[in-house]
């Protein structure tokens, strides 16, 4: 609406100017200035639009983009790699993000870039995409050196990127999002019809069907990702960089996504695929490059590599894959939820009639695709969100109406899903964050006055005990790495007398080393007799930690299984569909 007003205002001003000019010219020749003014006012803009529309070239779709195939006549994909990265070094103040990194991408190949968080994967692709200017090194595109002239240049040379966090505007339609920044125009008007046609064309060609007129905000995450791909292809990308594309997808969507990726490669596109999921790497890659600490740790051939060898390359040492876990010895129920219903911010009921029990000394895992009510479930149980109906009993007390602090006082610990939003106060020191759930109690404060010395001492002990890598307990917690931030939360929540532990996505975005540590801690607290409610979107995590598994689908528990007697496939199917296959009766 605002844009429309500006647009109309522009034309009124333009019309007025034309009218004024025409009127003045007429007056100079002795004609009636007023009449000529109105003539110019009404006819001028029409003439101007016609003129602009007729201007050759300006209306052609994607006119400002070079067509990359023809601009490299001497490029032979059989001999020359389509993209070659040589000796890229990029430093940020105090950090070497990339050191002498080489990478070769052949045409029509899927090249997986594997590495832990902070290994320099994102930095490398950002250099290729023109977001960063490297300190040293060069990039050859189809055998010719690529100039580092920014993102627009990289796009014009046929490089496209799909970011982990989608760069889409939810209130606009698919077509509007796709053309944004690269509007097809007929004169001064946006040619949305042409854009629609090309989006459909791309959809048919690569199996990326999306409705150009759908609002992006109404689409599922998987569909939004397709829009991102269409956006890159619309800009005639030949090389596609996909940054952790599967992190947000359900197992079923991942399979569909891989099919699309393969069809892109079959049609001659080349793909750089960033991930830290070993299973996926082995499933799709033609080539694997592993980064560690900013350097190339090695390359691998997916035909011969195993998850174990890749993990060792990534971490630089032997990784224990199977979590060492003894038999569970479940006791009495410490957390029971009865017929609980919860609403989200919009007032939509996202958890309905949920009932389950967690017993002392067991880990109850809740599997499910993200957005099926996990967040609301955890927040309701921990007192952060009101329950519409039902009851919650914790360690024998009715905690249905308890506030977060009362629930903590009962002996409940909560490792939240979003560590920067809920778990930590970024600008606070490590020490303050380590006591943020008990700052109000002695010895950390007396009669309302804080005792810095006691806080400091406690922090020093926890940093030592949980091996938190920090220069001191007085640095702001947001300066730590993600793994160490999570360790701060784990240290705070697990120290003390814990009867119930509620954990949500405990290892999201963490490196293999930190994941190992946190898994051990969770099992440790179970073995000390606490009941653990584990919510995770990572099916592997659920399978390796849980003693019993519940599957959450659209806010309902659609099945509860013994971890020992269930399979990955069975759970995956249930997560995606909410029901078991007809052929297979699940006994539970």
């Amino acid at each position, binding site marked *: 609406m605002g844009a429309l007003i500006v647009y109309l205002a522009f034309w009124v001003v333009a019309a007025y100017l034309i009218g004024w000019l025409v009127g003045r010219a007429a007056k100079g020749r002795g004609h009636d200035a007023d009449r000529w003014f109105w003539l110019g006012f009404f006819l001028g803009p029409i003439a101007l639009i016609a003129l602009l529309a007729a201007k050759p070239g300006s209306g052609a779709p994607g006119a400002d983009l070079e067509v990359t195939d023809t601009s490299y006549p001497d490029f032979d994909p059989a001999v020359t790699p389509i993209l070659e990265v040589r000796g890229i070094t990029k430093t940020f103040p105090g950090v070497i993000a990339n050191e002498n990194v080489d990478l070769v991408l052949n045409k029509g190949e899927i090249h997986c870039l594997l590495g832990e968080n902070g290994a320099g994967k994102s930095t490398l692709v950002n250099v290729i995409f023109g977001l960063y200017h490297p300190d040293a090194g060069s990039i050859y595109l189809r055998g010719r050196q690529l100039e580092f002239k920014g993102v627009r240049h990289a796009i014009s040379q046929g490089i496209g990127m799909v970011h982990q966090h989608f760069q889409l505007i939810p209130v606009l339609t698919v077509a509007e999002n796709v053309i944004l920044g690269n509007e097809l125009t007929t004169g001064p008007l946006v040619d949305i019809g042409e854009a629609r046609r090309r989006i459909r064309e791309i959809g048919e060609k690569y199996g990326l069907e999306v409705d150009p007129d759908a609002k992006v905000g109404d689409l599922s995450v998987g569909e939004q990702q397709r829009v991102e791909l269409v956006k890159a292809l619309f800009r005639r990308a030949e090389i596609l960089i996909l940054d952790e594309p599967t992190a947000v997808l359900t197992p079923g969507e991942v399979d569909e996504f891989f099919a699309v990726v393969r069809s892109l490669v079959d049609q001659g596109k080349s793909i750089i695929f960033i991930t830290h999921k070993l299973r996926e790497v082995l499933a799709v890659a033609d080539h694997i490059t592993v980064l560690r600490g900013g350097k190339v740790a090695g390359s691998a051939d997916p035909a011969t590599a195993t998850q174990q060898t890749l993990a060792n390359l990534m971490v630089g040492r032997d990784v224990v894959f199977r979590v060492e876990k003894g038999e569970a010895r479940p006791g009495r129920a410490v957390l029971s939820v009865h017929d609980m219903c919860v609403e989200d911010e919009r007032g939509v009921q996202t958890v309905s009639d949920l009932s389950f029990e967690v017993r002392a000394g067991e880990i109850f895992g809740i599997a499910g695709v993200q957005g099926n009510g996990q967040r609301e479930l955890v927040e309701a149980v*921990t007192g952060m969100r009101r329950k519409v109906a039902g009851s919650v009993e914790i360690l024998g007390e009715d905690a249905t109406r308890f506030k977060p602090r009362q629930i903590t006082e009962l002996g409940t610990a909560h490792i939240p899903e979003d560590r920067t939003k809920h*778990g930590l106060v970024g600008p606070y020191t490590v020490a*303050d964050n380590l006591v943020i*759930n008990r700052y109000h109690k002695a010895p950390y404060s007396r009669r309302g006055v804080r005792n810095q010395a006691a806080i400091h001492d406690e922090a020093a002990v926890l940093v030592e005990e949980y091996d938190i890598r920090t220069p001191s307990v007085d640095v702001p917690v947001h*300066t730590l790495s993600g793994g160490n931030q999570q360790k701060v939360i784990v240290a705070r929540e697990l120290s003390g007398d814990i009867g119930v532990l509620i954990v949500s996505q405990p290892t999201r975005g963490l490196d293999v080393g930190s994941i190992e540590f946190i898994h051990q801690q969770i099992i440790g607290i179970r073995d000390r007799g606490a009941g653990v409610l584990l919510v995770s979107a990572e099916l592997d995590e659920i399978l390796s930690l849980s003693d019993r598994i519940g599957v959450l689908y659209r806010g309902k528990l659609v099945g509860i299984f013994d971890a020992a007697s269930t399979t990955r496939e069975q759970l995956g199917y249930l997560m995606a569909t909410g029901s078991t296959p007809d052929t297979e009766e699940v006994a539970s």
Partner: protein
Amino acid sequence: MTERERGTGGRLGRALGGLRRSLVEGFKLQPVLVPLYAILLSFVVGGILIAIVGANPFKAYYWLVQGMLGGWERVASSIARSVPYIGSALALAFAFRAGLFNIGAEGQLLVGGIVAAWAGTWSWMLEVPGVVAIPVILIAGAAGGALWGFIPGLLRATTGAHEVISTIMLNWIGLFMVRWLVNSRDPIILRDAAASVPRTRPITPTGILPEIYDSQPTLHWGLFVMLAVCVLVAYVLKRTNFGFETITVGLNPHAAHYAGMSVNKIIILSMTLSGAFAGLAAAGEVSGMGATQPYQPGHFITMGFDGIAIALLARGNPIGIIPASLLWGALLVGAPLMQQQAGVSIDIVRIIQSMVLLFVAADAIVRFIFRVRSDEGGAFQMSEEVTL
């Protein structure tokens, strides 16, 4: 510490850089560099403006400083003028720390002032000594301001109504309510029927704060009241659980909720306290100036808005508010002499003050010109570099 040393060229440049570094490190100036440079820059730009209108900026500034500090009486005036600004800036700064933008200091001053003026005319007040009367007036004023802060706090906590909107609206409600209370002749509410201009009746003589220096305006003990409040607020924020909770809610309300703090309680309390600070400042004025000047509705106009600038200049630090307010009051006191002697309009001071606010708010300009590195966790960090 990565002090960026670009080739400023020549030995002089290096010597100046070294001087600056030793000054900054010797006096621990790093946290206040931006405000200091912002003030410097504003005076430079103000000087250019003065030159453009045809006066000599050095002469103008000489008389400005003379007006601010030339003689004890002028120093006393400068301090006296800045006392109420301490309260209005504190009202802003405290709410800032709780993540709230209290634009309502204007209304809170007005309401606090009228309640204090009314309390000063209660008939039983005439018979009690100063040790009772003065606290009663101050507390009444603080309570009036607190009420005007409590309402937007409550609205924010219960309905989510944004405090910027509700405090602005309450400013107007406060202004017209006070005008009506003071102006109304039929019925007479708080108007002094004997006076020719609309104003309240004089407060009880025992309720007048003792004078420190007979300047214009009077320097009175309200100064010490406001200084004590600044120190108290600094202590509460730094050392107490309530202060910790307030800052936590300001930095990350989600984490505060998760950690078991009552976010709504903190929002209501901090808005109420903010209002109380403004109300207290107004009560101090009513009580301190009671001998010469009964309450008039126009008295506090724009003081609340100036508080925004002062709080920003002090970067939300309650102790920093003291020098910032002093600068503010002194500039206003010094300006008339500059106009008299150098022929430069008083308004140039207002322009300089506005530019200080501009440069503090848009600190990237100052950091760019003076090459100040960005500090972590400043109370008013506007934006960090975009990281991709």
